[in-house]
């Protein structure tokens, strides 16, 4: 249920973070989604170290160049929301909305309406800055993706979170395979031809400020800090987002190489 702030506009808690590890951020988000009854906006201005984050049913063997991941010792996290795989680092800006199902007027708690609502919000953010669109489920400038989305919808609440590529390291992209499921507009492009950097369009602080301003058109924002949330936390809650163990990755690597062997054998017959 929306808790009214200004007349007709529900209240939303704004949490501004910087350099928080992505696993910690996801644990926080999952806890707030499942145990809180408030609306939340979480902005994490970059995470502390490069991490691979897969969607809820992501399979490492299919999505990652595991040998490279193990070699570079990049942590791999499986998050609680759907969607694809991203490699996040200090150049990634995260914006998350966690809302009660009737918090936003006219937005039904289902994937497409929420996605469209977010697209309209970011349209305001990028007005006059670039050729911004919500394209299938991605945020793009022109036909190049700079923001990826994922959602989770529960009985009474929903979360919509985005990782924005403000900047990225080219060599890190080598850890990700070309996914089997891609949006149509991607065509046959590899990672580097498909994505673009938000830093070519606007400074970080401007982006964050404009996002907060756009959010204010829907909610009455109230700043909260992390300590305040964590002290009142429900300690019984156990998040499903987790770090994959080395053993799991090594098993996946073995499986991947076995598949390659049997595939090449079948071709040689």
């Amino acid at each position, binding site marked *: 249920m929306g808790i009214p702030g200004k007349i007709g506009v529900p209240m939303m808690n704004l949490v501004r973070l910087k350099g928080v590890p992505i696993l910690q951020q996801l644990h926080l988000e999952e806890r707030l989604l499942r145990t809180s009854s408030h609306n939340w906006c979480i902005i994490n201005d970059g995470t502390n170290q490069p991490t691979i984050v897969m*969607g*809820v*049913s992501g399979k490492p063997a299919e999505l990652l160049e595991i040998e490279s991941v193990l070699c570079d010792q990049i942590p791999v996290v*499986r998050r*609680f*929301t*759907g*969607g*694809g795989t991203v490699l996040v680092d200090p150049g990634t800006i995260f914006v998350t909305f966690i809302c009660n*199902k*009737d918090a936003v007027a006219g937005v*039904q*708690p*289902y*994937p*497409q*309406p*929420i*996605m469209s609502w977010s697209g309209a919000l970011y349209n305001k953010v990028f007005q006059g800055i670039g050729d911004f669109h919500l394209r299938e*489920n991605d945020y793009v400038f022109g036909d190049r993706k700079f923001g990826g*989305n*994922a*959602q*989770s*919808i*529960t*009985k009474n609440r929903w979360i919509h979170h985005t990782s924005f590529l403000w900047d990225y390291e080219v060599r890190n992209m080598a850890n990700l395979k070309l996914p089997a499921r891609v949006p149509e507009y991607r065509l046959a492009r590899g990672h580097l031809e498909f994505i673009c950097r938000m830093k070519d369009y606007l400074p970080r602080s401007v982006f964050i400020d404009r996002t907060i301003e756009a959010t204010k058109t829907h909610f009455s924002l109230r700043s909260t800090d992390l300590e305040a949330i964590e002290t009142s936390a429900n300690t019984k809650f156990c998040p*499903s987002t987790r770090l994959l163990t080395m053993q799991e990755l090594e098993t996946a690597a073995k499986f991947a190489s076995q598949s390659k062997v049997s595939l090449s054998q079948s071709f040689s017959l």
Partner: protein
Amino acid sequence: MMISRRILILQKRSFSSVRRILCPYTSQTPNPNLSPAQASASFRSAGSHSSILHFNVPYIAVNRSFFSSHAVADLPVGGIVDVPLAQTGEGIAECELLKWFVQEGDQIEEFQPICEVQSDKATIEITSRYKGKVAQILYVPGDIVKVGETLLKIVVEEAQVLTHVSENPTPTQEGLKNIKPCDSELTKNDICEVLSTPAVRNLAKQHGVDLNDVKGTGKDGRILKEDVLQYAFQKGSIKDPSASLTSASRRQFLGGEEDHPHPSGEVPWSYEDKTVPLRGFQRTMVKSMSMAAKVPHFHYVDEINCDALVELKSSFQSTNSDPDVKHTFLPTLIKSLSMALSKYPLMNSCFNDELLEVILKGSHNIGIAMATSSGLVVPNIKNVQSLSILEITKELSRLQKLALDNKLNPVDICGGTITLSNIGAIGGKFGSPLLNLPEVSIIAIGRIQKVPQFTDDGNIYPASIMTVNIGADHRVLDGATVARFCGEWKQFIEKPELLMLHMK
């Protein structure tokens, strides 16, 4: 009206005999405690699902613009409710089941979350619309579930009111629509654990057969119609199982299905509306016909004297020593069509309206429209220009059999260059067919009818006349081309010896 594309006649059933088809993809009790990472994908569904769904089964009316994470269920009959995966968003046709929050035997409340699914970017909790006990879970984590397929079965304690979801509510605000479930006896067959379709259950009931006693020969031990009839025959309930099967199949092929009579007084007739969501071939037909309707068609009608064709067929039949081969008119019509196409290749082409290009196809892949129980399908015979009439006969028979069994391969359906619609097999003088895009012409042939004709000196003689209607894309073909092509084809049919003249 496009006779050759008419929607197949829906079966009239009473509500009491309506059952959902059980999901054929699982036959084990899943472990709902498995996380998605742990669950095996051994029950991952594959291939086309549309051939399995019985399109006659009514669904609850759900406005397409309203999405529900509540699993909207079928009308509860005698306590068992089939709970389908409801539509979770526009364009979302299927979801991956991630985890169950309940297991078989659990008591669940209305609006209690029962499972979590993933579609594209979102994980979605599905809540139960009903209060009751989980009877059977039909999918395991990792499975792909199509929207509308039954997720689980719930035993409801009492007849619960069916809710009709309206256009702009939140999930908790729904309009109510009272539908009284029809009186029916809950038999053992209704709540047994065997896999079978509603049609098979009714057939079993008709013959007094307990499905638990029947050995299923279908996939995963599914009980088929043949299994029930065979069992009933052995029991002595019926005289000839193959006769019942053949007549049932024939009725299916022609488009009407009356599986069981309604003895008066036993099963009350229902005049309620039934909503049938279109799936598989029917769904494809919606899309292809909508696109075809945008193309400027013109139709050319002619009559062809089939006396020679009738004689030819008799000759083939009388000299036929192969019991597997049955000669009909169609293969000769197909071969002569190919001969005419050689002279008028523009009739065997595809039009690309963006590039304004016509591709004259080298192969004559002649599609034959077939009415199956799942809808209209057009498999094609490849390279007719290189096939003999006998080879065409065999290939046609192969495709017809596959179509009836709903086992056509994608390669059989793709790559057609022209379509022949033999609506005359069912009846009618001729049809006004719509193009099978991206082809530029389609031919509908009516029934060969014996009609009186006049000689020049006024005497009457009988002639076997077949009316044809050629539908053509007027962006590519003009009347003169089509008329000349038809004349050429007509010549080969009326004088089949000309085929020998061009034989290579």
